């Protein structure tokens, strides 16, 4: 699959043959990809896959060992001053004085960026009015994340890097973050999100990059990554003889999680009938039967397993 996600001139981020080494360890190994303005690109990968190193190189915190990075057409390491005015970043954690209060921090960052963002409006937008005079150290995990997001938005960014933006946030907070991400995208911002949360990625991503062991092992739209990978999913609390079921259906059957099973390679209704007949004959309870494209977490598991082997 091509690492260029979409053929378009509206490129917000372009990474070309990027190599990052720490001594003898190669964290990022000739990675190339592009991300478009007006789209949400989600970077997925297990720990140590090279996501953070790649993002830090894009943010200008890390000089590439080899290769090049262009953010909004600028070199983030050499032309940082120009880039910082238009780039929002949200660190995974920290980055804030523990004794600083919410409102004064947001005002400080709005003033530093100088892009005309109203601090009070921004505080309301991220739902922190009720804790505006609270110090950072007294905020909950979710409030800290929303404050960090607010500081990124203070830039009125053309490109924004969000590292685990929904980590530790409750359901309402997640809805809020998603709506802000959609607003940014609709306003033409290039949104880059790094996350471990595959369900979250599935909800917000236009494009997905999967990193593994310093390489991009897959990239494309969600539909592209899932296409041609049909499956039937079901739940059962009974003990299932996978070999017997697989032989009956003529298709591979595997247990994906506790009480969750998939029949790979088909979503055919006739196979579902065969499945329920087999369950009845073997006195096995099954439920929540669904059929369709593979979920992103299954795609992710398969791709990283293939890459590892």
């Amino acid at each position: 699959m091509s690492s260029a996600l979409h053929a378009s001139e509206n490129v917000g981020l372009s990474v070309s043959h990027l190599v990052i080494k720490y001594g003898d360890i190669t964290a990022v190994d000739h990675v190339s990809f592009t991300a478009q303005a007006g789209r949400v690109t989600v970077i997925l990968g297990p720990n140590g896959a090279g996501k953070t190193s790649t993002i830090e190189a894009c943010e200008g915190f890390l000089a590439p060992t080899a290769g090049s990075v262009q953010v909004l057409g600028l070199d983030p390491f050499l032309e940082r001053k120009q880039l910082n005015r238009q780039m929002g970043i949200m660190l995974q954690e920290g980055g804030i004085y523990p004794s600083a209060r919410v409102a004064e921090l947001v005002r400080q960052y709005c003033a530093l960026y100088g892009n005309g963002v109203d601090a009070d409006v921004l505080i309301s937008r991220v739902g922190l009015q009720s804790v505006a005079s609270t110090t950072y150290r007294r905020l909950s995990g979710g409030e800290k994340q929303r404050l960090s997001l607010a500081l990124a938005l203070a830039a009125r960014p053309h490109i924004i890097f969000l590292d685990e933006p929904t980590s530790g946030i409750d359901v309402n907070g997640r809805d809020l973050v998603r709506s802000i991400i959609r607003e940014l995208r609709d306003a033409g911002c290039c949104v880059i999100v790094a996350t471990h949360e595959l369900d979250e990625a599935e909800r917000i991503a236009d494009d997905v990059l999967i990193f593994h062991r310093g390489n991009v092992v897959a990239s494309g739209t969600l539909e592209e990554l899932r296409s041609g990978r049909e499956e039937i999913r079901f739940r059962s609390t009974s003990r299932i003889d996978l070999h017997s079921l697989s032989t009956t259906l003529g298709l591979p059957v595997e247990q994906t999680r506790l009480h969750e099973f998939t029949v790979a390679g088909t979503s055919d209704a006739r196979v579902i009938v065969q499945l329920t007949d087999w369950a009845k004959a073997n006195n096995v309870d099954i439920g929540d039967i669904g059929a369709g494209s593979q979920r992103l977490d299954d795609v992710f598991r398969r791709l990283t397993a293939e890459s590892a082997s």
Partner: protein
Amino acid sequence: MKLLRVQLACELRVLARNGEQLLLILGIPMLLLSFFSNVDILPTSGQSSVNFLLPGIVALAIMSTAMVSLGIATGFERSYQVLKRLGATPLGVPRLVLAKALSVLVVELVQVMLLIGLAQVFGADLDALNIAKLVVAIALGTLAFAGVGLSLAGRLRGEINLAAQNALYLVLLLIGGIVFPLQEFPSWLHWVGRISPSGALADVMRDVFSGTSVHGASSLVVLLCWAIAAQLSAFKLFRWN
């Protein structure tokens, strides 16, 4: 200019909220000056206690602010990734450094005014005070101690940096002739104190406040050497994240 003003206000706000730092930079020097000015137990070579103490206590105040307070705060900011986050704003490194330097100078100005006012209450004779020399001494002392503080802050983890800065503060307080005259020390320790930044600054401050010092111009040379060496060290060792 606006960005500098915004960051300076932030630095001062953070400092004002930090009770431990305020105790260190204002409380301890004022407490030492008050106590030893009124409890006559120090060998002061014929001077009044307050006149003997004031120059050393001003040197101690500068060491507290420029080295310990700046060093500890910057070390924690590095650990908390505050510096990294600010590095991604249009503020830029030169303005950030300047804001920190100005915040140190503002605090030192307040410290010196409070200490001189307190000394006057205890009957200090300030007729020989030379303001021009005071400005030079504060500038060189600030450069020297800020360089030492940032060198430690730039390399050590937050908690280790905190311990190291406080330990160094105590050592420099004891060997610098700030509370006890260097002449009372064993000769080898006298020499260590004389070439230490705290000993050199305290002696320069004696010249500032009374027109006479124990080691004369050599203390100014030692302080100048510390200012240059410490700044070079900070430049080489400091890491933003």
